[in-house]
């Protein structure tokens, strides 16, 4: 089982990329689980095949405790196991703490044993903002981290912060940073900027995702491009990225 946390600045396209990667890996025959770690609970929206997924925190709010994985998971496109942690009403409670509580529920119910996925993706809100949002990095959860970034300064700033957090955690045996995925925003000299940044950070850029309007098109139908049309250029580049992620595992 490979467990990968996807981090990056808010709005950079993490959920889209994560879901498309999940879809790509599932079409290659892998069992995939995707855990959205964001109070907005919309990470897996293009994977659930129209089924209703109750975020874990919503379920707990309603019922106090959860005794069954069926209540909080949906098997969507190609059997991908979708989970959303959810979170509190904005302005009260603690969203970071919500991730901790949700992960405890998944552990208690033996989710990883029951679904036995080959890949688990944690799609984590924004930057590492507090202890709760760093939870996927801890021992026992993700082993690898991938950061999604563009060439925009704020996205790179966020990526740098995530790297810093990982360096701070070095003594703790937390997850390892694998590299960057560049989600192109078509700004000037974007690739050069990001490669330069990656070199300074000492991590590889192992995938570039071009801008493509088909992403939005299929998203509006609550699908990933892989599900929508695997023959598209954009679908093919993501399949290639998925292969690279598989190779990363085999290389280590």
């Amino acid at each position, binding site marked *: 089982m490979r467990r990968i946390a996807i981090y990056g600045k808010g709005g950079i396209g993490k959920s889209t990329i994560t879901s498309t990667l999940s879809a790509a890996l599932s079409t290659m025959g892998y069992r995939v689980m995707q855990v959205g770690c964001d109070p907005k609970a919309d990470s897996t929206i293009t994977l659930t095949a129209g089924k209703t997924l109750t975020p874990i*925190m919503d379920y*707990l*709010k309603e019922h*106090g405790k959860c005794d069954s994985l069926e209540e909080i998971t949906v098997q969507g496109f190609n059997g991908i196991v979708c989970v959303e942690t959810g*979170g*509190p*009403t904005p302005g*009260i*409670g*603690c*969203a970071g*703490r*919500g991730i901790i*509580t949700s992960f*405890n529920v998944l552990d208690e119910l033996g989710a990883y044993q029951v679904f036995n996925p080959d890949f688990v993706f944690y799609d984590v809100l924004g930057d590492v903002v507090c202890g709760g949002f760093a939870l996927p990095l801890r021992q026992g959860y993700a082993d690898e981290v991938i950061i999604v970034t563009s060439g925009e300064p704020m996205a790179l700033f966020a990526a740098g912060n995530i790297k810093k957090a990982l360096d701070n955690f070095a003594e703790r045996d937390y997850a390892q940073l694998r590299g960057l995925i560049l989600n192109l925003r078509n700004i000037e000299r974007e690739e050069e900027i990001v490669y330069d940044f990656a070199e300074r950070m000492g991590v590889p850029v192992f995938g570039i995702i071009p801008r493509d309007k088909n992403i939005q098109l299929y998203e509006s139908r609550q699908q990933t491009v892989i599900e929508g049309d695997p023959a598209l250029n954009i679908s093919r580049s993501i399949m290639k990225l998925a292969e690279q992620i598989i190779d990363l595992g085999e290389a280590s």
Partner: protein
Amino acid sequence: MACAPYSLSITELKTAVESGTRKLLDGGSLRYCPPSAGGWGIIRVGLLVPESIMLFVSPAGCGRHGAIAGLQLGFRQRLFFLYVDEVDLVTGRHLERAKEAVEEILASISRPRAIMICATCIDDLLVSDYEKLAEEVENDYRIPVRACHMNPIAMDGKKPPQLTIQKAIHEFIPAVKQKEQAINMLGSFAAINRGSEFYELMAGAGVSPVRHIAACSTFDDLCSMGRSFYNVLIKPGGKLAAEYMAKALNIPYCYAPVSYGLEAIAASYRKLEEQLGISLDTAAYYEKTEKAINYYRKILGSISIAVGENINACPFELARALLSYGFEVPYIFTDQVLDIDRENINWLAERRPHIKVFTNAHPSMANFLDEKLKVDLAIGFDAGYFCSGAKTAALSMDCQAYGFEAANSLLKEMTLAMNNPHSHREQMYAAGLVL
């Protein structure tokens, strides 16, 4: 295994204080909690509000010591607990649940005159708005409601819980424009002993009545404290309360502390004369107390005394008083040094440079009982615990001496402890101390 307990001589402490290191604990240590640690606790102080109830909102564990102390001391029936679980932490829904809890409580008891809602460390971290909650509940039920906080996590800040709770209990008092020639006493948990000359002196100067929250038997009595024209702060714990009342209720205050040394007592009276614009004839009381000191000094002999922090006094002032009475004070146990202690530390360092000052909370105190320190008498449960062979005078917060009567009652309590010693353990557990 053994390691010497951390201590400073009073001279070293003087230097540390002068150089700005006011904390006794050396550089952020773990904290030892001896059995003698603790005091009244937030819940007990909060319930000083007459005819009130308290809803304590927290994870189950937080309220345990307060509740057991409540059972021991008889205030459990005015105390209600709402337990916060993990889902509450995340969603913050316990604030809504607190409203439901108040509804259910009010349906099951006779209507209280006031409600205190108490939050803990976790709600500090979650920045939950308990003041707003209190306002909403007050509007729903037309009962005065205030929020208070048992949040030791804020202990080192400007609003530590032991100060904010004293403020909170006085926040029920409405502002009154028309003032009377009456005063309020702030800072202590008990009203000044009826036997103190203070009442006589005040009445003689036309100041009456002397009010204190613990002497109020009804909520209306508490409200009448708003009519007093002046507040006398006698212990530092009431500082935020005094500041609040000065601002919100237009009642100015002065600090005229409880003291045990004759000169310090006289100084507090002089301050009151100045601030209240009255004249107090204290000479006779001074002389009488001087005689009493000589009398008790003869009865007790030249005993050695360890002074603790868990007492109704500032430890350095008490040590100074005891030395001036003619006793010896080889050891002091305390965790903190306040600005007001400086003068007494300097005085002690000049006269008895070798007094050892131990820190109750220092981790090395876990091995302290191996030290087998010997003194005749310990004042305070902490000093009594660490000097295990000594007889103990509690000098507790449960009753409040003031003025020259403070010296007299101290000496009486010391004599009683020397002549009729009680089991330290039993006495201490019966006191219901809460950390």
